[in-house]
């Protein structure tokens, strides 16, 4: 992964994840992130996340100046644990999603998005 100027440190990413999980173990798989492989404009990158059985999903952009993107909470009226939005990416980086499952366990997914023109202003 290419370094992005002003990118958050690895510990900021770890801190964001452990604040969400409370330090619990996180398994791989069960979380699907859909994003373009190459985003021409980092100001608005379409992204969707789905984790069947999740009550909450934390989305993190590991290479942005601050890693937090969003926390999706799915209520009793939700038909699926899926949400799609558009996000800002400062450069090529991994987007990570951590899902909290209804049984209290955590699962992780990640995808690399290549960004042609970064979207964090400056």
């Amino acid at each position, binding site marked *: 992964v290419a370094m992005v100027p002003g990118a958050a440190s690895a510990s900021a990413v770890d801190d964001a994840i452990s604040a969400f999980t409370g330090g619990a173990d996180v398994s791989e798989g069960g979380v699907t992130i859909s994003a373009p492989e190459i985003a021409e404009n980092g100001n608005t990158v379409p992204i969707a996340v789905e984790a069947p059985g999740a009550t909450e999903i934390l989305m993190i952009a590991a290479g942005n100046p601050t890693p937090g993107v*969003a926390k999706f909470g799915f209520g009793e009226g939700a038909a699926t644990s899926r*949400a799609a*939005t558009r996000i800002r990416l400062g450069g090529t980086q991994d987007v990570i999603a951590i899902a909290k499952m209804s049984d209290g366990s955590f699962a992780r997914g990640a995808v690399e998005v290549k960004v042609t023109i970064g979207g964090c202003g400056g």
Partner: protein
Amino acid sequence: MSDVRPRIRLPRSANAGDVVEVKTLISHNMETGLRRDGSGDAIPRQIIHRFTCEYAGKMVLDVEMEPAISANPYMEFDVQVDESADFVFTWYDDDGSVYSETQSFEVS
């Protein structure tokens, strides 16, 4: 902000028990707080930091949003519509403003 305008897209019709896809967008520039103006001064952060959708009085989606959400924040998600009821969409701005939109939805 005076130009904030929510837009909602729902399917034209649905049967009771169907899963419908809801798309929302609200005009807002989502100022990150990272940019500087022409004289080098930081432009203060002003974003919509929370969005909620309820249907038939039940919470569907409750999103905490950071400055990494793009301008004119867009959200798409799925709701099971068991009965005709109201959708209530609410956006919370950093400046304390709350923007709310209610749409009734009929199932057959």
